[in-house]
């Protein structure tokens, strides 16, 4: 890559990241269809292509054909802009997450900080959708999402800070390279906190109170149809991809494994897929937590646990280095 002109290299990397951004969420979506179906004793999509492999492509074609309605009461520009604001941060985040020491589109020095900052921007899309729809259910859902994000951002950042402290760097590439297997035990509380907070940030079951259909219809996404709705769905699955990759790089050592020099990216993919399937599994197995239970879990369990982890890491760093 180094012998290519800078502009060509940048353009090539951008295309590769965009391709990954458009294909990986579809793969996750298809996996969710199938895993969820078989966990419920069903087959899932079977008609679009062999074993329904093209179901999400068919869904995409359907969404394009649908009428894109903007409600009369909506704040037009806020409403129209919200899906893009929800989607783009995950695309940007995907660009700095390393698949191996070489396979990273933009290796910035403080990439962990960058990823955490940019994924928090996505919530503005949800808040804008909630506010701009001119619908009380959307507003309640948007506010729930906002409150949830504020609560879970803290334990998530604390857990990530613990790993950064252990590795002595804020670079994701550096963290994954500093990782060794006994971190699985050392950083276990932090990993659990991070995983739970990630599921909450993605507004996935059991933390899907913002889109609880029996209470607030579909929360901030109630008024969306056609492509706008499809973008929000894509953002959800892109979020799962980003969070799974981030968890893999921070807590599972990223590309470390046998023959990691050549098979590195494959290890990252394998581990991230396992994490993603775990996130999908929770949706099938668990009920939704109530809004107050959700807040209590964040402030009385996760934040103290993350602080304990931070102390544990501090002691470890002082003793071993």
């Amino acid at each position, binding site marked *: 890559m180094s012998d290519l002109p800078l502009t060509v290299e940048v353009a090539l990397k951008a295309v590769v990241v965009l391709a990954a951004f458009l294909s990986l969420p579809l793969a996750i979506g298809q996996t969710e269809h199938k*895993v969820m179906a*078989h*966990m419920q*004793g*069903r087959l899932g999509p*079977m008609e679009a292509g062999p074993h329904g492999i093209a179901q999400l492509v068919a869904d995409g074609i359907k969404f394009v054909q649908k009428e894109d309605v903007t409600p009369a009461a909506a704040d037009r520009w806020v409403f129209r802009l919200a899906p893009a604001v929800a989607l783009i941060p995950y695309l940007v985040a995907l660009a700095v997450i390393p698949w191996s020491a070489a396979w990273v589109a933009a290796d910035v020095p403080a990439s962990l900080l960058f990823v955490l900052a940019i994924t928090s921007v996505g919530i503005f899309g949800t808040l804008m959708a909630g506010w701009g729809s001119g619908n009380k259910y959307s507003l309640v859902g948007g506010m729930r999402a906002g409150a949830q994000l504020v609560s879970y951002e803290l334990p998530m950042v604390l857990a990530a800070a613990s790993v950064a402290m252990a590795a002595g760097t804020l670079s994701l590439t550096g963290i994954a390279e500093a990782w060794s297997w006994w971190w699985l035990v050392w950083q276990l509380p932090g990993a659990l906190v991070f995983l739970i907070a990630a599921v909450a940030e993605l507004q996935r079951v059991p933390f899907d109170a913002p889109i609880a259909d029996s209470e607030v219809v579909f929360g901030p996404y109630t008024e969306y149809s056609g492509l706008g709705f499809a973008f929000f769905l894509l953002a959800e699955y892109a979020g799962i991809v980003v969070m799974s990759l981030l968890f893999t790089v921070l807590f599972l050592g990223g590309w470390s494994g046998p023959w990691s020099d050549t098979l590195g990216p494959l290890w990252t993919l394998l581990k991230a897929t396992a994490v993603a399937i775990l996130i999908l*599994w929770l949706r*099938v*197995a*668990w009920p939704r937590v109530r809004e107050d239970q959700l807040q209590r879990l964040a402030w009385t369990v996760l934040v103290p646990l993350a602080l304990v982890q931070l102390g544990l890491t501090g002691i470890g760093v002082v003793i071993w280095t």
Partner: protein
Amino acid sequence: MTTHREPGAMDLLRGLGKGLATTAKTLARPAHTRQYPHQEPDLPERSHGVVALLEENCTSCMLCARECPSWCIYIDSHKETIEPGPEGGRARQHNVLDRFDIDFSLCMYCGICIEVCPFDALFWAPDFAYSEGDIRNLLHDKPKLGTWMTNVPDSTLPDGYVRPGQEAARPVADAAQHDETQDGTEQAGEPDG
């Protein structure tokens, strides 16, 4: 009486674990789905799919049409005279069925018509795939109702009834015995002479 206990953190974790275990077990087992249009369902032979008509047994007595709660059976008939067989006999009349229609857009599959028929002319058949693009096409006439006799299980057919084209397959003694009973019912059904 058991005393109520607030579920604690361990109960919560156990419940969450049970949820994961159950779904994982289901994932490992094959799905229950039958892919219907590609794979025919395996129905019990006495499934209540459609009402079949054995036209030769119908005497146009109208009991089914009158008992039908949704008034979906339409019957028309006329009388014909049978000339006396032996010399000096009396001419008899019998009913000839002109029309026997069931409107399956009205039918609620209660089966009362089949229950009330005293002459074993109506049967449940397991056929179910007779949907139509237009609701008016669900009014089926007697030739169509007769075609469903093919799948009526043998166990529900009246004694002595021989399916068209199956006569050769029956044992001779059995067939003779059935012929006798058939004659008997015919005589009992005759008006007093």
